[in-house]
């Protein structure tokens, strides 16, 4: 009966916090755009090394991000087959419900490993799934990262089990089964989010060292302990690496630093400093710096009431003397990673901010953490263990003190403490309870204008790009045939005012034409996140933008889209075109890495321009493979192929790293089959 009451209260609380996800309305977040029927039907599980939406809509290599495409596309393709192109259902079953299910199951097993009590385990899940960090993350629509966050406790649980069996000499089969499971869990975590995967790898390695050092001090079989721990760390990593060959192999073979490929906004020290929003007091208090508005860059003053959280968490250290060594080690480990996570999550802020900058510059893999808040994951993991542990010990301690005070059954010290503690946690997340959070916690409606624009664009078979001022609205339509360019990124500016200034320059018409832009779009800011003054929607900024664009002579306004301003540019360049008018070009799109071309009436030295971002790995090759024309830079930005002789050509424009992706996919698939086969064989041998 007690268990049922605990489960019911927990279930009601989670349902209440995430109630909007169970409504029948559309959900979007700043990082979760909607997908129209036409977009859903074109989703594919095939992995391509090139993505037209990359590099601000001008196309770019995505080999280092292919793990992300597996996770974002596969559920959409499967669910579109099941439900049809019904995005309302698909987004729930692809993103939101799996997050909740994975989060609850994974955090429950993890907590049960540490505590035997159901009540403490439930308390632990509640902390893990309803703290300000995960509420801001899921509210902002970062659903794939939220997946990774939800799965993180399962990874740690599997590795803890692995290290337990590592020293049992008579359980070798079980040990190797655990290694395979650990490898698969790590591979899955990296698939959800490579950065959280990296964080969990660091955590399990630290745990292994922590446990190994303790064991070494208390036993004599040094070599056996070291061997077992090395195997328990490195074999799962090797398994995970093999399973991720599909993106690791092409990324390594391309030989460029994937982070620096994204530009200074991702790889510079200034970017790290700018993105270090959280201060040490925020991270220690598990308080997301943007709580509760979740407006990018708007950091509120420290909310003092959250500082009771670290007090509760680290009070756990007062109770560990009475514990057996394993429980004591666990508490010490979680206290340590709590501090470590809080220190790293604050990024370049004081104290010792230079440590983070040094790690970002020199430590392998750390360059992924421009945004340091990902490290909140291990703070949450740590506190989800420490706080229930402290709470249960304080509860027991108060119970023991009752004999000195008063001893009624219901109104007693320990129950008052439980009520105060529960009320405190509810108070901390009260914006979530009272429906004050935005993003995915609020319903969205698609204005008719956007539906009309989607129909207009999706039925047009010509290739062109759309150009969004100041940037792409989350209800916007785009596709491989009509990639969208955010004006702020294209002009490298930060406001609609600066976009207009850039549009008014004499060379802009030509620049946009070269980028194959046919329509300039000023979105209807129905969600109020594009036209801002002091981070608040300002309709005057929108009106002024529309008014000024109306006066640009080389733009023709297209009517019929309500509050969305659509302007046409005359004669934009095609996807493939030539500066030489004699050249006749026919092309067909096969996939983002391959195009078939017929080029007629060419003369030696003619140029074939391909309006995607320049990448030296693009080639134009003849059907028999004898002629391979490398790409040369055109206008400082695009690909072009110099035709060597007079005549007609049948060419294939091909992005060569695709062949490494294909080989990587084969290695990953074979590894998966081999690993699953080994697991089955080991399970049978164990029986």
């Amino acid at each position, binding site marked *: 009966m007690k268990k049922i009451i605990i489960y019911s209260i927990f279930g009601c609380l989670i349902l209440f916090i995430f109630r909007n996800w169970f409504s029948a309305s559309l959900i979007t977040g700043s990082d979760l755009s909607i997908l129209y029927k036409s977009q859903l039907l074109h989703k594919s599980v095939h992995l391509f090394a090139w993505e037209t939406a990359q590099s601000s809509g001008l196309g770019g290599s995505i080999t280092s991000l292919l793990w992300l495409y597996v996770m974002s596309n596969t559920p959409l393709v499967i669910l579109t087959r099941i439900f049809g192109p019904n995005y309302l259902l698909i987004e729930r079953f692809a993103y939101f419900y799996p997050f909740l299910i994975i989060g609850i199951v994974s955090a429950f097993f993890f907590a049960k490993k540490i505590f035997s009590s159901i009540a403490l385990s439930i308390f632990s899940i509640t902390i893990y799934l309803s703290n300000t960090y995960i509420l801001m993350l899921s509210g902002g629509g970062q659903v794939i990262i939220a997946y990774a966050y939800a799965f993180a406790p399962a990874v740690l649980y599997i590795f803890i089990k692995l290290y337990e069996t590592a020293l049992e000499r008579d359980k070798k089969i079980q040990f190797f089964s655990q290694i395979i499971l650990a490898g698969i869990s790590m591979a899955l975590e990296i698939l959800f989010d490579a950065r959280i995967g990296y964080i969990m790898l660091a955590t399990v390695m630290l745990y292994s060292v922590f446990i190994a050092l*303790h064991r070494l*001090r*208390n036993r004599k079989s040094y070599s056996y302990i070291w061997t077992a721990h090395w195997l328990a760390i490195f074999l799962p990593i090797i398994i995970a690496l093999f399973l991720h060959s599909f993106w690791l192999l092409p990324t390594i073979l391309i030989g460029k630093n994937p982070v620096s490929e994204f530009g200074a906004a991702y790889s510079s020290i200034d970017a790290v400093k700018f993105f270090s929003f959280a*201060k*040490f*007091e925020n991270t*220690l208090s598990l308080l997301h710096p943007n709580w509760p508005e979740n407006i990018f860059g708007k950091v509120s*003053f*420290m*909310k*003092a*009431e959250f*500082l*009771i959280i*670290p*007090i509760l968490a*680290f*009070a756990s*250290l*007062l109770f*560990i*003397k009475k514990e057996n*060594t394993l429980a*004591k*080690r666990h508490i*010490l480990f979680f*206290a*340590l990673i709590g*501090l470590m996570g*809080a*220190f790293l999550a604050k990024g370049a802020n*004081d*104290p010792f901010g230079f440590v983070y900058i040094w790690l970002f510059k020199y430590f392998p893999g750390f360059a992924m953490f421009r945004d340091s808040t990902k490290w909140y994951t291990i703070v949450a993991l740590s506190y989800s263990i420490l706080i229930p542990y402290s709470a249960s010990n304080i509860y027991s301690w108060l119970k023991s003190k009752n004999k000195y005070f008063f001893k009624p059954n219901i109104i007693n010290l320990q129950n008052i403490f439980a009520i105060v503690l529960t009320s405190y946690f509810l108070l901390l997340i009260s914006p979530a309870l009272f429906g004050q959070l935005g993003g995915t916690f609020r319903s969205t409606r698609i204005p008719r204008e956007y539906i009309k624009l989607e129909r207009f664009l999706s039925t047009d078979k010509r290739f062109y790009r759309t150009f969004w001022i100041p940037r792409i609205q989350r209800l916007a339509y785009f596709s491989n045939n009509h990639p969208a360019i955010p004006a702020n990124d294209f002009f490298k500016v930060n406001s609609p005012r600066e976009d207009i200034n850039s549009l008014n320059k004499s060379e802009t018409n030509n620049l946009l034409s070269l980028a194959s832009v046919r329509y300039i779009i000023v979105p209807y800011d129905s969600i109020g996140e594009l036209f801002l003054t002091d981070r608040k929607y300002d309709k005057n900024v929108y009106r002024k933008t529309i008014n000024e664009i109306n006066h640009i002579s080389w733009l023709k306004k297209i009517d019929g889209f309500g509050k969305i301003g659509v302007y046409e540019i005359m004669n934009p360049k095609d996807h493939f075109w030539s500066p030489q008018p004699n050249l006749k070009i026919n092309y067909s799109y096969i996939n983002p890495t391959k195009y078939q071309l017929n080029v007629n009436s060419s003369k030696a030295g003619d140029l074939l321009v391909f309006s995607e971002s320049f990448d030296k790995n693009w080639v134009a090759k003849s059907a028999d493979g004898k002629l391979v024309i490398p790409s040369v830079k055109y206008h400082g930005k695009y690909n072009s192929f110099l035709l060597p002789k007079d005549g007609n050509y049948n060419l294939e424009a091909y992005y060569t790293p695709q062949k490494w992706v294909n080989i990587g996919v084969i290695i990953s698939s074979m590894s998966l089959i081999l690993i699953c086969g080994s697991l089955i064989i080991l399970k049978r041998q164990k029986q």
Partner: protein
Amino acid sequence: MKPQDILFILILVFLIYKKNPKYFVFAGLFCFALSIPFFQFWIFFTAERLTWYAVAFILSAIIIFIADNKN
């Protein structure tokens, strides 16, 4: 160096001399608790320092616990 830094160092030296990890934990928790009213009244410099001191005390406690953590 501010007066609160000097006080922190003196307490830290005293606690290191005492070598009892529980004292470090109490000092850390006290610093966290003391920072609450400072944050509430927007005295951010001292409040922030107090959270840093708290971390230093807690970290010292963990190190001593680990060093003592023998069967």
